[in-house]
């Protein structure tokens, strides 16, 4: 009975199960976007076809975000137009694009934390009953289950969104797009916040959406993911389209225009993005300086998040901390510097220390660079100078520590801009105007200015383009060579393997195993880490 009521009160929905007939084709035709002084997109023509995963890659500032904003209706192009299924469309606002079937899955998730999964998914299009006065909760629940099962997840539609993990929230966000009957789905760096396992789940979801005939637009800094999943790859550089690769019948990616060159792999793509040859992006590894540990954790843990961690890092050594998102790596690091309550003990240069506060840790030479640059690592609304000097403000004062020495602040900022070749023309402007890579360099520099002996760095290259990644790797390797003890937390296996002297893998809040340096060279080392991180126990013998 309720079903008939729904049919009566709901807007007619396209029949499901025959997606092939509704394949969308979204075209950007000679699109140019100009900002004062900058041409963010320059005469770009791309078509996105239903049943295809189309990856857009490029360095930060290449125009990817601008293109996505045009497609999703956030900005209108200065010149050029969009066509959808052959007819020209003009999206004045994102709602217009969504109504036309073009939805964007944002990097920042926009769920209402106090509503449950089903309510969030159908927000604004709730099934009604009682002549539209009341929400039909059971129909809402059913529809939510239907959509979630379409995504292959058994998430409970009754759970509050505030308690979801990032990966789960992303699934809800995608389901929300499907609820609006999206035929073109745009994913803006969806894997940036995910661990290895969640990423592979998401990639198979992308394939599934494609197989249903939807057009999937995929932006990622992770070239391995792009190579694994994309049917077509467009490379943007300085606002222009510079390359297009298509997967041919044999599953090999080849240049679409001109002579079909060799098959494209990650290094070909990286070269296409930066327009120059990149050497190995991982610098050579140095060696530890002395035997005594700079930092030692004994039976350490973050209350409620991790436990029983024993680990020591010597000066000059880089230890990688691998594991799935939620395995307790970040929480452990936060507990070390006093941002969380801890159990067990921390020893710095052989002396036991208890840090109540990051400042206390800083005084003993321990610094933590957060994974969450926007929310915790930096003050995005404040200037580069203010961000740079915040932890070391005491050192930039005059008149007995009360007055700020603004000349000294400026000087130290300029010094790090030079040292890290940060692209930052006006350090007095909000740091949010810088690219992710340059922000990350500041996030690192502000803590190096505290002259640490132990550096805990969490996801050092999240949301950072290939060129800046290589620079950050080199910086970390140089720091180690200069005698810093580094713990690098990362969800990117190639990064952690390429950078670290040894890798400690965490699972469910505890150390699941450790790979010493000689095991990091083997071809099967990624697989070993993944097995450990997922809690498979065969590798236990490597624990030392």
């Amino acid at each position, binding site marked *: 009975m309720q079903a008939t009521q729904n049919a009566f009160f709901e807007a007619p929905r396209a029949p499901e199960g025959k997606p092939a007939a509704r394949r969308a084709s979204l075209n950007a035709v000679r699109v140019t976007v100009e900002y004062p*002084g900058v041409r963010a997109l320059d005469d770009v023509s791309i078509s996105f076809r239903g049943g295809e995963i189309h990856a857009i890659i490029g360095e930060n500032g290449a125009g990817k975000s601008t293109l996505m904003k045009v497609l999703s209706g956030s900005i209108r192009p200065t010149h050029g137009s969009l066509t959808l299924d052959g007819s020209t469309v003009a999206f004045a606002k994102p709602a217009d694009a969504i109504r036309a079937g073009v939805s964007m899955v944002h990097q920042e998730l926009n769920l209402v934390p106090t509503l449950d999964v089903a309510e969030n998914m159908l927000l604004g299009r709730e099934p009604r009953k009682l002549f539209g006065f009341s929400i039909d909760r059971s129909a809402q629940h059913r529809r939510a289950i239907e959509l979630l099962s379409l995504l292959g997840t058994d998430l409970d539609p009754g759970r509050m969104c505030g308690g979801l993990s990032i990966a789960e929230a992303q699934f809800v966000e995608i389901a929300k797009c499907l609820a609006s009957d999206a035929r073109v789905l745009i994913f803006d760096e969806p894997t940036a916040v995910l661990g290895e396992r969640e990423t592979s789940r998401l990639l198979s979801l992308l394939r599934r959406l494609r197989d249903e005939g939807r057009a999937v637009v995929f932006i990622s800094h992770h070239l391995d993911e792009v190579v694994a999943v994309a049917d077509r790859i467009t490379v943007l550089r300085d606002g222009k389209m510079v390359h297009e690769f298509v997967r041919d019948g044999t599953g090999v990616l080849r240049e679409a225009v001109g002579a079909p060159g060799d098959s494209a792999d990650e290094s070909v793509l990286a070269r296409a993005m930066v327009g120059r040859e990149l050497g190995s992006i991982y610098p050579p590894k140095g060696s530890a300086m002395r035997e005594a540990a700079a930092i030692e954790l004994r039976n350490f843990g973050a209350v409620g998040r991790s436990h029983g961690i024993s680990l020591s890092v010597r000066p000059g050594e880089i230890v990688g901390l691998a594991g799935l998102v939620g395995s307790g790596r970040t929480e452990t690091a936060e507990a070390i510097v006093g*941002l969380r309550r801890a159990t067990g003990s921390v020893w710095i240069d052989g002396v036991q220390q208890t840090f109540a506060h990051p400042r206390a840790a*800083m005084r003993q030479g321990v610094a933590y660079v957060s994974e969450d640059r926007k929310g915790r690592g930096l*003050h995005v609304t*404040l200037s580069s100078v*203010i961000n740079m000097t*915040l932890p070391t403000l005491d050192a930039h004062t005059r008149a007995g520590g*009360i007055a*700020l020495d603004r000349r000294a602040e400026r000087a130290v900022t300029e010094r790090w801009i030079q040292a890290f070749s940060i692209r930052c023309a006006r350090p007095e402007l909000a740091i*949010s105007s810088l690219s992710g890579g340059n922000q990350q360099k500041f996030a690192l520099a502000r803590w190096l200015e505290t002259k640490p002996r132990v550096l805990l760095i969490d996801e050092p290259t999240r949301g950072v383009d290939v060129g800046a990644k290589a620079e950050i790797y080199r910086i970390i390797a140089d720091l180690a060579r200069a005698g810093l003890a580094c713990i690098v937390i990362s969800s990117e296996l190639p990064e952690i393997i390429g950078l670290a002297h040894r890798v400690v893998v965490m699972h469910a809040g505890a150390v699941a195993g450790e790979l010493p340096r000689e095991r990091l060279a083997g071809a099967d080392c990624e697989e070993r880490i993944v097995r450990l991180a997922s809690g498979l126990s065969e590798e236990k013998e490597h624990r030392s």
Partner: protein
Amino acid sequence: MTTAGPIAPTRNAHAGFSISRFLERWGVVVAFVLLFSVSAFKQGGDFLNVENFRNLLNSNAAVGILAVGMTLVIISAGIDLSVGSMVVLAAALGTTAMNRLIELEQPELVAVLVGGALTIAAGAAAGAVNGGLVVFGRIAPFIATLGGLAAFRSMALALADAGEIRSQSSSLFSTIGRGGIPLFGLENNAGRPLTLSYSTVIFFTVAVVAQWFLSRSRFGRHLVAVGANETAARYAGLAVGWVRFRAYLIMGALAGIAGLVNSSRMNSVSTAQLGLGSELDAIAAVVIGGTSLRGGFGRVWGTVVGVLILGMITNILTISGVSPYWQGAVKGAVIVLAVLVQRGSRE
């Protein structure tokens, strides 16, 4: 550094001129100039009279001092609704103590100094209570100070049986609120030498010191960082609780100073009336001045201009014969308009 304002330029990340961006930054000055011109046009010589300004400043000094403190609290992403009640409690305690000393036949100077110091100390103590509830009790600032709004006035009412506390000082006490520094060569309408009132001097001194601390001191920087993003401030190693606590403490001490200015001007404390509703005037001045209610951005000089704008509006309306009952509506409209204009390109 070439920046004109303390921390303002960070918001305007893009080069080039735009009207909305200009208004966002300088709208409050534009409004001040407009109002000033309207006043001068309507009242002619009466308005452009120096004495008129003296009175404008003098009658708004107390609320101005509160607004300066409120600016700091709001920059720290807090709010203090209890300022009016802190004013009356501090003034009541200080005046009572001063009277007691005079009754005990202590020298009047001693009585006034001790009473004045106690007024400021009582305000600071009330501010410390607010800060303690917010920081250590983890109560939302709105709620904690709403409690203070009720409790502090109730204490003052109980102290004086809801009546008036008259100062027993012959004339020394009222000099603070009524006296001033003579401005040589200027005379008032009655032909006596014109003075710059001590309360105005206190207001401007407080404002200048606060602006300096906000833009040039470590504390000001910490305040902005905590207000902009408390979590990020904690991760940067700041003692977030201590920073916020000090904002409420300073607010309390300034409420004490405002209480002193008020009670000495009236030479008495009306426990039912003094400071009533001044939290709204103070918040309004802060908002008009361009300080973000979300915290993390603000300017004391804007607040000072905001106080003068509010004062001028009252002035114009009174002189134009608009019913006092309508003045609230006009002020309300101005506050909303100020926020709309200054939101500008921020979105």
